[in-house]
């Protein structure tokens, strides 16, 4: 029969949750920063993207029509914890485990075909792909900048590395409009996870000094509570 042994409530976040939240904080802060830095550029909105965390409901932002007051074509970034591995030759079985986690940073961008007054037109499928690749570029540059070497969690994060970038080609039967393309930057992050430690109960306190006497003898001088014999 299992015995309850933990004497503390588990009310702390695990490191993988802290890292997940920090990735979203970094991206959220930096996209706003980039838009500010691009104030002199012709189109600062090219540096903007929305940041979401662990979302699974459908994104409906690209649905409103061209003239709709709530139309918003800002690309979307959704961060979610995908998987983690715990190398058996690292960490220990008592308190600390090394966690190598993969976070999926998914990007979504739309493209609507539009007229080009100079001639021809701008195809929406190409625009969607270029838009999402622009967001991939921004995210990789932000997360791999030297200021984010430890994802601003120095002492917690050991290493972060872009595991892969994947472009998701639309399926053949996907004929919906507008064109929406998805892409993913999988970020691998290495950090420690700690587990609850049982508070030890002091059974007896024994203090021992090791001394060498003048005649060369090595003696142990012990100091402990003792109930004198009756």
């Amino acid at each position: 029969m299992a015995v309850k042994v933990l004497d503390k409530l588990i009310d702390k976040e695990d490191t993988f949750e802290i890292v997940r939240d920090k990735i979203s904080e970094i991206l959220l802060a930096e996209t706003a920063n980039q838009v500010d830095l691009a104030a002199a550029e012709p189109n600062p909105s090219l540096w903007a993207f929305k940041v979401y965390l662990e979302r699974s409901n459908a994104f409906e932002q690209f649905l409103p029509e061209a003239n709709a007051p709530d139309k918003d074509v800002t690309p979307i970034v959704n961060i979610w914890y995908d998987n983690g591995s715990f190398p058996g030759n690292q960490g220990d079985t008592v308190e600390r485990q090394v966690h190598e986690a993969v976070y999926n940073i998914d990007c979504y961008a739309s493209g609507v075909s539009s007229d080009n007054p100079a001639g021809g037109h701008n195809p929406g499928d190409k625009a969607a792909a270029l838009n999402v690749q622009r967001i991939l570029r921004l995210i990789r540059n932000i997360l791999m900048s030297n200021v984010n070497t430890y994802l601003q969690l120095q002492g917690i994060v050991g290493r972060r590395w872009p595991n892969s970038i994947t472009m998701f080609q639309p399926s053949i039967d996907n004929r919906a409009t507008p064109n929406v393309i998805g892409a993913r930057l999988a970020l691998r992050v290495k950090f420690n996870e700690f587990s609850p430690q049982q508070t030890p109960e002091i059974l007896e306190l024994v203090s021992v000094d090791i001394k060498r006497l003048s005649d060369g003898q090595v003696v142990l001088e012990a100091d402990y509570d003792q109930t004198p014999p009756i």
Partner: protein
Amino acid sequence: MGLKEIAAADARIILNDKITGVAIPIIITDPDGVVGNLTGNTNDIGQLIDVDTGVAVSGRFATIVITIADLTEAGLGIPRGIADNNKKPWLVDFDDVNGNSYKFKVEEIMPDRTIGVIACVVGAYE
């Protein structure tokens, strides 16, 4: 008149019946700017887009169905999706049931020369 001709004629009647049928006005503009005021069936419904990330994106699926004979009478050829960005696309304008106007670009066609109709999948155009 054979059965195929009868079927084609019936299809043309159905796709032009704005009074008792489902047909509505559709404006087709070819890449050269030739405009045809036609009538046909339209479809514009919501559709989830699966971008393969595990999270869907909401979109629309819009189509029109018109007869090849009507296109020919209007001086238009067969619409098709134009991939070249140095060319104008085939454009389609029609209203929804509430009178809101939408402009689309022809992205994919499915001609049925058996009974003389052509279905076009259209995408939003600005």
